[in-house]
């Protein structure tokens, strides 16, 4: 664990050259250190951009090395909860490193990765889910990833879980009151509605989980493998989809022997597109290895694009690829529609189940590629992601939600079996613990407190 009491410093902007670069200081000495670095006598005004100069005292003349804008964010209202100073300098790596070095010479410590956010969590500025969202937001490579992460940072996941937890808490409080105040002459919760109430809560948890496969795909990205027998144009489709000529395309069947992959942004979903060797029986040792790798790639792929040559006859090898991918999410691309051919066959000849998307494309002319993209994306994440449904994509969150859902299922079952409140409550408390672990917050709310707001208790 980091020692969270000293002043840390780091370049907050990405490595490399840019118009501006930001150095961030956080900790008890942030203000003092900043004033010492700056050619500025008075303390910085809180939350005001102050134009100043960085002075390098180690140079004989105490030379200014850059003109900067410094902003002070006093704790506890800052990002980390500590005193924070952000210095916007010109974006030269050499310059920024120099500023950091000067700060370190003044007593600051170089921050570990994620330490600013960790401090924000320690200081209660962010809950665990939000802290995780910061990392996701910074790591986002597609706008959709960024959006989902930002929503999480804004608290949509926390709020969705919080809303379920609030209702669960209310139910718990009523059941507790039934036990602690058995002689009040009325019901705190109508008997017979408990199982149903628990069921509704569980449905909401399941609702959050339902989007989790999609959430994971968005957060973590996924692999899509292009498969097909040799020389149907897999690499051409691959190149057309990534928009460059990474894979070597020749007319010779079996040119692609290793896996070639690249990451594309498929309307917000980060897809690692994998071009594979055509699957066929071969005596060529290298090609055989390629075929084996193609099969491995298939095993980890979230989805497959099966490429068939529309201009040639449907062969046994095509059918075996279709068979091998029958259990996988897939899109069938009928390539080379630009080639006029007498041997073209009707789609029905494929004999595919109705849910399989079939798209006609020409990798060469680009015809049908948009259709192919949206078919692949739809196969991965379904329809458009709506902002009002929070997307749960973090494996930790999914695991805890599953635990909560399981505990609620137990509670519902024992209620239906006629168990009394204390047993139902034991299960409900497990669900609550899972929610609390999720947000990293222990809610000190006394169950008893809650009940007194609603009921007149005590004879």
């Amino acid at each position, binding site marked *: 664990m980091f020692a969270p009491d000293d002043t840390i410093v780091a370049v907050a902007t990405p490595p490399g050259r840019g118009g501006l670069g930001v150095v961030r200081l956080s900790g008890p000495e942030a203000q003092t250190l900043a004033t010492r670095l700056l050619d500025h006598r008075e303390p910085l005004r809180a939350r005001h951009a102050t134009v100043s100069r960085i002075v390098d005292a180690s140079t004989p003349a105490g030379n200014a090395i850059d003109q900067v804008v410094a902003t002070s964010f006093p704790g506890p209202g800052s990002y980390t909860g500590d005193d924070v100073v952000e210095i916007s300098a010109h974006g030269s790596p050499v310059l920024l490193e120099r500023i950091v070095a000067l700060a370190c010479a003044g007593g600051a410590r170089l921050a570990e990765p994620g330490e600013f956010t960790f401090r924000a969590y320690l200081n209660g500025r962010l809950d665990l889910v939000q802290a995780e969202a910061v990392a996701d937001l910074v790591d986002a490579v597609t706008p959709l990833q960024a959006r989902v992460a930002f929503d999480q940072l804004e608290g949509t996941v926390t709020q969705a879980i919080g809303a379920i937890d609030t209702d669960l808490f209310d139910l718990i409080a009523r059941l507790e009151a039934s036990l602690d105040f058995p002689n009040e002459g009325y019901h705190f919760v109508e008997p017979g509605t408990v199982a149903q109430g628990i069921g509704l809560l569980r449905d909401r948890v399941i609702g959050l989980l339902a989007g989790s496969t999609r959430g994971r795909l968005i957060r973590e990205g996924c692999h899509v493998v292009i498969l097909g027998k040799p020389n149907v144009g897999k690499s051409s489709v691959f190149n057309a989809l990534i928009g460059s000529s990474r894979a070597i395309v020749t007319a010779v069947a079996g040119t692609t022997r290793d896996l070639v992959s690249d990451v594309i942004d498929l309307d917000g979903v980060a897809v690692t597109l994998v071009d594979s060797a055509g699957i066929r029986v071969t005596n060529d040792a290298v090609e055989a290895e390629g075929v084996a790798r193609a099969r491995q790639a298939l095993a980890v792929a979230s989805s497959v694009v099966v490429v068939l040559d529309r201009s040639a006859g449907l062969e046994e090898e095509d059918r075996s690829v279709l068979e091998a991918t029958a259990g996988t999410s897939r899109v069938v691309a009928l390539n080379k529609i630009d080639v006029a051919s007498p041997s073209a066959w009707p789609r029905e000849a494929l004999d595919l189940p109705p849910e399989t998307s079939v798209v006609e494309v020409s990798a060469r002319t680009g015809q049908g590629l948009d259709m192919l993209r949206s078919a692949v994306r739809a196969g991965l994440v379904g329809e458009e992601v709506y902002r009002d449904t929070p997307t749960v994509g973090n494996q930790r969150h999914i695991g805890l939600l599953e635990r909560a859902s399981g505990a609620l299922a137990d509670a519902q079952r024992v209620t239906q079996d*006629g168990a*009394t*409140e*204390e047993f139902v409550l034991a299960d409900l408390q497990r669900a609550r613990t899972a929610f609390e672990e999720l947000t990293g917050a222990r809610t*000190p709310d006394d169950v008893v407190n809650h009940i007194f707001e609603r009921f007149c*208790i005590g004879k």
Partner: protein
Amino acid sequence: MSRRYDVIVVGAGHAGVEAAHAAARVGCTVGLCTLSRETVAHMPCNPAIGGTAKGHLVREIDALGGLMGEAIDATAMQFKLLNRSRGPAVWSPRAQADKRQYGRWMRARLEAEEHIGWIIGRVGAVRLEGGRVVGVELEDGRRYGCGAVVVTTGTFLNGVIHVGDEQRSAGRVGEPASKMLGESLKELGLVWGRLKTGTPPRLDRGSIDFSQFEEEPGDVPPVPFSFLTGLVDREQTPCHIVHTNDRVHELVRENKDRSPLYNGQISGIGPRYCPSLEDKVMRFPERDRHLVFLEPEGVDVPEIYVSGCSMCLPREVQEAVIHAMPGLGDARVLRPGYAVEYDFIQPTELRPTLETRKVAGLFLAGQINGTSGYEEAGGQGLVAGVNAARRVRGDGEWVLGRDEAYLGVMVDDLTARGCLEPYRMFTSRAEHRLLLRIDNADLRLTARGREIGLIGDGRWSEFLARRERFERNVAAVRAARAPGRGGSVELAQVLRRPGVTLAGLAAEGAVEVEAGRDGRAYELSSVETVVKYEGYLRRQTATVARGERDERRRIPQGFPYGKVPGLSREVVERLSGVGPATLGQAGRVPGVTPAAVAVLGSYVRRWGGRGMPAARD
């Protein structure tokens, strides 16, 4: 030269009697200081012992050799097991006490203890030397020496009684307040606050038309409190149920400005779980009636306690309210209800032994710690009495865990969280509730009591027999098989089905179990529970085990939280104010986040509880 005792207990209410008795049991000489022997174990409010969670406390006090269970079994007029329709973890015994007999029984038991001496008078100050207790001084100047003091003065510290606009300085009706002692304690720098509680009017039994009411009979057979009590064969006295009505509510509303609760005369905070009639009417206008129980205060006394009607309106309004209820038209009010405001010491000032952190040898127990209820007081008295005695004898601290007893939950809640309103025990406060049942209080605690000298040989040998019976019975049930699909199944499986009971199976001859002595039904209930609810118990035991590391990680007294990097100022203040004994307890201090506990844990571990954190390099 004044007399010297090992331990002096100030006050002989429910906390004081258990404290004195426990300290004497553990082997100390005890001076029990009270204003009068007539008010020993007095019940100034409800003439009842037990109730949900409170019944658990009484069973635990009894399992540790305390007096409360035996006293109520000997003097109760009516027994009821609450929550009978639910599972064994939440069954709670309750009994109507004959107040006078209860007090006399207690007094006789204490008078029979040879190590307890009586000091009749009022303590004015606790005497200190070098920051530790050396004795007490009475208001009349008498001095007594001792190694530890247990202060159990209830609501007597600066008590003010309110009836309408009448106010008088007093502890309880007819008893003077204790002002000097309160000031003496405040001078020690203990954080204190002000609370309020109330009591209903008492009516004259002969002026009530009981034919108008629903009768509440006792249980047959009664379920006693003490593990020593066999069958209770006694005629039980019924209680009666009345309801308030529109007229009652109207009277309260019309006169609310004459109630000290609503005109600003009272500033202390009252318990929300036991609201006054004024609160019920004003805060819950949607309720058109409230339950009222008429409870006799004794077999041969005229007073009837009007449970549910605590109020502090002027006497004539109280009379009108009473007369507005059916059957009470001619009822004579013997004593009006009243509210009492009193000082309490924030229990965050205390260690889990109930010794103050600031003054060595000074222990506090009962209502002075912000609790309400005789049972809560009695339980603290026992804990404080034992620890006061152990401090004098130089033995270690004796602390019960939250997973061992409601007593442990209560002391932990009080010392970690403090009181914002009078603290009452609830089963929902015990996160390991399924493990803390009335049927196994002895299995949980009697051996703990024996280790420190609380359990005499008679009770111990009876307990050993009971424990062996329990183990034999559990083994028999686990070994038994019952006819089932395609041959036979484990009887345990059958017992786990909803609605199946061990008594039922035994009656059918499916298994042979040894009954407890004299029809002690809890014995079978212990057996049934560990088999029938095995899955739940196992899960709760696993939860306990997960938290054990933090519960065992001790934080040294005076630990400088301010030097732990990464704790916010607020967290440092709270932790310093409470001085949690363990890392587990630190996590229960309000406002202390899991992140703060993680940080604290790494420092407490690193310094192993021996040294203090030094400045970081």
